[in-house]
């Protein structure tokens, strides 16, 4: 909300400059978002002038050459293009050297051969009206209701608000009472202690009780219209507003229209309460009815659009049907026009949430709807009526028809709350004396009386929605005097032992294993485009198709929650490859989302979410080197990374060739299931490992790509929290190699199992370190070389010691068709 500072100072004028006012308002809850200056930065070289002569320019039809008395010995010659300039007028003049609001500095200028020593100004050129209002021509000051006879040469800043500071405020949604200048003035009063002028509605010209003649109102939906008030004005003359009013509205960001409309806007800006002026003669039947709309009913609003309503929206109708959408926008049919003479001034309270709904449903927001949706109080209706009545009489020559139509009346009686002094200190950690509490609350329009434990506080009508409990009163005290003085203490932290959970530590360790091996972490979108499941070749019943769909996505390509990290990894890989970075080694650690299977009530969360870690490799794993070949992304490069990570957790894990249909986005011959178990427990599937199916990689314009993904939640369940020490003895290990030729159909893992089983306890480890296929070993066969490591707790082993074990291993290998090499 924009508040011109001079307007604010009319009601509360602390002897502070704008920066100090900004600081006080901001620190007490009315944040100043910006300070604007409307008009000129410096009033220098802007003066009052009197046009002595105005003759047609010899060489230009539309220009006039004027001599203007600017209070100096010599009259200034000024060329002016305004059609309305004439001898005898008192005008606003900018002299050479003046700096206009847009920053241009005025110089003497030759216009069609005539030197112009300045410029006669239009109101919009000083930001007194919005730009685009130039048709009105120059300002003629003597036509305006200015008090004094204006001597030429008088500084213009003494006559017109040509330089106005405007504060732009953030009003929090709980404070609709601050949507008016007077409400802000009250805040400034409480924040600074400067005096607060009485409310501008205190003096209401309306004498009469009872209802004015000539208009009737009926409210059929009091639940949505708690109060409806109306006054009738006759003998209204529609005209432009005086300059001060235009200037004030312009500074506040409102476009002046005509005196009646401007009065409604002025009263709204001052009180916070929107008003609407009807041309009473154009209200068919002289009666307005407030009712719920019919489903499908149509109304043409002021902006010329036809709106289709539903049964929860409220219309105001006259004898010919709906004229406005209540609280949102008026209709063209009964708006004030140049020949309007009778005005019905409507000021009503609408149900905030209902207005919000109507406004959003129709996609139609207005100044009024923005205010009503925050919840205005019925009492504000008569505030606005009082302000408007004074101005209607003063500025439009209007006569008020005595009386006010008032349906609904004031809001509920004032609430009384207890405020315990001890409670204030307990919440703040800082004492505030009861006297000071009383002072603060009094400044904010609360009534207070001493009570047993502190105060009894009566909540003012305009705060009744926001302040309903003791804690709300404590906030009022704290924001005015407390927050700035708070001590910086630390809580007692009873029983607090800050630590990460096992699962959190596993997650960090898994991520660290990746970054330690040279992978970069990405952060992808949780959203995915629904076509992802097709591009990943998932068949109809595949479990990854149990997706969560976003009902109202921002765009169609974000319409579902990702069921796998692979999509965002592939997206990131493509992004980089297409930008000249062919080597991509990345991982992501994040949530994936699936619809719950079966009984949703059995869980406390609405979806199946788990935290996964996925990695993707494409191109070379390391930079190219002057020494030796580098590793390129493939199944085994990915497996090595996975192994590096899983081995760090000291758990039993393995991979198993997977059925191709299990993860159809993987290469059918190079895909594996990753399993792990805790101790002697059942193995659980952690995830997949494989090369991405060439067709899938192609969808993302990638060449050979390897990937894996594991469920970190499951990993945490199988990873031991604590690694228990295992004795390893004091003696050196005995190392031997063995090479065996076997049918290729026997997997390395089977060979490893067999060797370890045959080796028994004394065989510490058996690792395959070489694989050979070729003519020497024959078709369908391959040679595997294993590094065996024997270990005993009892003593140093010799070749003779392990010979029987080695023999067992060899015979076990022979049983599956193996023959020793070398």
């Amino acid at each position, binding site marked *: 909300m924009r508040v011109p500072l001079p307007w604010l100072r009319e009601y509360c004028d602390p002897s502070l400059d704008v920066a100090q006012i900004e600081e006080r308002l901001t*620190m007490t*809850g009315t*944040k100043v978002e910006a300070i604007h200056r409307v008009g000129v930065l410096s009033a220098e070289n802007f003066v009052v002038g009197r046009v002595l002569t105005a003759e047609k320019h010899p060489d230009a039809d539309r220009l006039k050459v004027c001599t203007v008395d600017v209070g100096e010995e010599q009259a200034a010659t000024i060329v002016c293009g305004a059609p309305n300039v004439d001898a005898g007028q008192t005008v606003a003049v900018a002299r050479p050297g003046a700096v206009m609001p847009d920053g241009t500095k005025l110089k003497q200028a030759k216009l069609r051969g005539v030197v112009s020593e300045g410029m006669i100004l239009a109101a919009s050129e000083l930001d007194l009206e919005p730009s685009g209002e130039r048709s009105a021509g120059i300002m003629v000051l003597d036509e305006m209701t200015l008090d004094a006879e204006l001597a030429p040469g008088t500084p213009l800043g003494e006559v017109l608000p040509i330089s106005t500071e405007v504060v732009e405020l953030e009003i929090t*949604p*709980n*404070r609709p009472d601050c949507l008016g200048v007077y409400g802000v003035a009250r805040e400034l009063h409480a924040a600074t202690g400067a005096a607060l002028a009485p409310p501008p509605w205190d003096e209401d010209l309306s004498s009469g009780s009872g209802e004015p003649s000539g208009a009737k109102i009926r409210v059929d939906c009091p639940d949505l219209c708690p109060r409806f008030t109306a006054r009738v004005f006759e003998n209204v003359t529609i005209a432009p507003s005086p300059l001060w009013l235009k200037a004030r509205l312009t500074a506040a960001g409102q476009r002046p229209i005509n005196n009646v409309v401007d009065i409604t806007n002025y009263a709204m800006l001052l009180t916070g309460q929107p008003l609407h002026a009807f041309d009473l003669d154009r209200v068919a039947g002289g009666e307005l009815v407030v009712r719920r709309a019919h489903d499908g009913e149509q109304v043409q609003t002021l902006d010329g659009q036809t709106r289709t309503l539903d049964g929860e929206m409220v219309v105001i109708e006259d004898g010919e049907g709906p004229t406005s959408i209540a609280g949102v926008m008026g209709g063209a049919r009964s708006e004030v026009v140049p020949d309007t003479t009778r005005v019905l001034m409507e000021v009503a309270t609408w149900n905030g949430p209902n207005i919000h709904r109507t406004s*959003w449903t129709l996609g139609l927001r207005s100044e009024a709807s923005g205010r009503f*949706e925050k919840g205005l109080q019925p009492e504000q209706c008569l505030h606005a009526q009082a302000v408007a009545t004074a101005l209607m009489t003063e500025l439009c020559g209007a006569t008020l028809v005595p009386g006010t139509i008032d349906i609904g009346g004031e809001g509920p009686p004032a609430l009384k709350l207890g405020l315990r002094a001890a409670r204030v200190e307990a*919440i703040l950690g*800082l004492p505030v004396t009861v006297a000071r509490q009383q002072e603060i609350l009094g400044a904010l329009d609360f009534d207070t009386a001493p009570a047993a434990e502190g105060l009894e506080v009566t909540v003012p009508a305009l705060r009744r929605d926001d302040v309903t*409990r003791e*804690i709300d009163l404590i*906030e009022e005290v704290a*924001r005015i005097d407390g*927050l*700035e003085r708070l*001590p*910086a*203490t*630390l*809580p007692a*932290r*009873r029983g*607090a032992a*800050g630590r990460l*959970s096992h699962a959190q530590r596993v997650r960090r360790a898994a*991520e660290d294993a990746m*970054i330690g*091996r*040279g*992978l*970069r*972490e*990405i*952060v992808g*979108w*949780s*959203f995915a485009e629904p076509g992802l499941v097709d591009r990943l070749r998932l068949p109809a019943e595949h479990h990854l198709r149990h997706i969560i*769909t*976003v*009902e*109202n*996505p*921002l765009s169609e390509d*974000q319409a579902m929650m990702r069921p796998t990290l692979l999509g965002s990894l592939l997206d990131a890989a493509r*992004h*980089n490859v297409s*930008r000249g970075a062919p080597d991509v*080694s990345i991982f992501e650690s*994040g949530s994936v989302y699936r619809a719950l299977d079966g009984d949703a009530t059995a869980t*406390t*969360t*609405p*979806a199946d979410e788990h935290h996964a870690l996925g990695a993707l490799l494409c191109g070379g794993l*390391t*930079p*190219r*080197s002057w*020494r030796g070949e*580098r590793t390129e992304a493939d199944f085994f490069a990915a497996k090595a990374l996975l192994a590096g990570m899983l081995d760090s957790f000291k758990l039993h894990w393995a991979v198993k060739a997977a059925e191709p249909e299990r993860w159809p986005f993987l290469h059918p011959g190079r895909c594996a299931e990753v399993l792990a178990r805790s101790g002697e427990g059942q193995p659980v599937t952690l995830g997949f490992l494989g090369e991405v199916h060439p067709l899938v990689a192609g969808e993302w314009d990638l060449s050979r790509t390897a990937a894996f993904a594991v469920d970190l939640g499951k990993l945490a369940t199988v990873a031991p929290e604590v690694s228990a020490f295992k004795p390893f003895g004091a003696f050196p290990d005995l190392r031997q190699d063995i090479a065996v030729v076997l049918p290729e159909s026997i997997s390395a893992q089977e060979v490893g199992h067999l060797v370890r089983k045959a080796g028994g306890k004394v065989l510490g480890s058996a690792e395959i370190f070489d694989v050979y296929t070729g003519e020497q070993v024959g078709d369908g066969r391959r040679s595997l070389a294993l590094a065996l490591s024997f270990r005993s707790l009892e003593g140093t082993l010799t070749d003779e010691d392990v010979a029987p074990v080695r023999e067992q291993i060899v015979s076990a290998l022979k049983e599956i068709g193996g023959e020793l090499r070398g």
Partner: protein
Amino acid sequence: MSDDPFKMFPPAGLSVPQRIEQLRTEAEAAITGASDTAAVEELRVRYLGRKAELPQMLREVATLPPEERGVVGKAANQARQALEAMIATRGEQLAGAELQAQLGEDRIDVTLPGAPPQPVGGLHVLSATRRELEDIFLGLGFTVMEGPEIETVHYNFDALNHSPTHPARARTDTFYVAEDTVLRTHTSPMQVRAMEAHPPPLYVVIPGRVYRRDLDATHTPQFHQIEGLAVDEDITLGDLKGTLLHFAKAVFGDDREVRLRPHFFPFTEPSVEVDVSCFHCSGKGYLGDGSRCYLCKGEGWLEILGAGEMDPNVYSYVATTDANAPGYDPEKVQGFAWGLGVERIAMLKHGIPDLRLLLDNDLRFLGQFS
């Protein structure tokens, strides 16, 4: 050499001592003339080896007439010791020279890249920031909790005191996946979940991903928050200030200050926004050259988070299954809560100008942080 040592002992025409002297002279000359360690080794074998003459003489001393034994033994021993010493010295000399030569030949271009090259990985700056913040609060005694991103309307709005018509519930603002299920709009739904899971006192931080239907220069529909929550008998706003001051100093430097400004949130009362003094201009609002600080836009303060004392109404939403568990009675417990944006902290701290950089996953961006 002959198999019969006595054929050589003593050689013709020389007394034993003379022969010893001859051998010694000969050997000394040879050792001095040796040009490399291999030659020295060869001379050692020739003159002092198992089958060499001098050692043989020593072994044969016992067979000499007693009156010669002393003289011969002594001379032979002296010769042997002298040669041993000489060989050792000469050997060391030559070995040193040879090593020197070898080291010279071993010279390499130390400026070639290491091999094989070790790729450098790193956390995304958002994860690194999240961990940094987690660690700060872990140090203060808070534990870290996480919760679902797909959340019920109950926890996301109802239990946080949002009125049934609160604008944030609108489908224009919040993503829905079902009538009563949303993508959580903040980490705050974990407030009630955390209290339902643990009796007071409770000190937790809750990092996580959140979603709002916003997309412009300063908003993305997904972003990250860290919720903080402390509920105990006597948690004050001063405690909130102290906790966040500790945090601000840890993240932005020891000289930082914080200030609390009144604000409004449905689930805290009193509510505040928290500013930290600008670390770029040290809170002055202008820089050394007098120009306005671009980071805080001349304010001297940077808004970093929203917070407040927990609204007493929120406690009433804590459902406890165990009737005997100490519940959350607003007359007996009070606490504070805050929610801060991880993106904002990361962008401030690292000078990242554009939110979209955080989601592009461009390696040229990712490589700048670790």
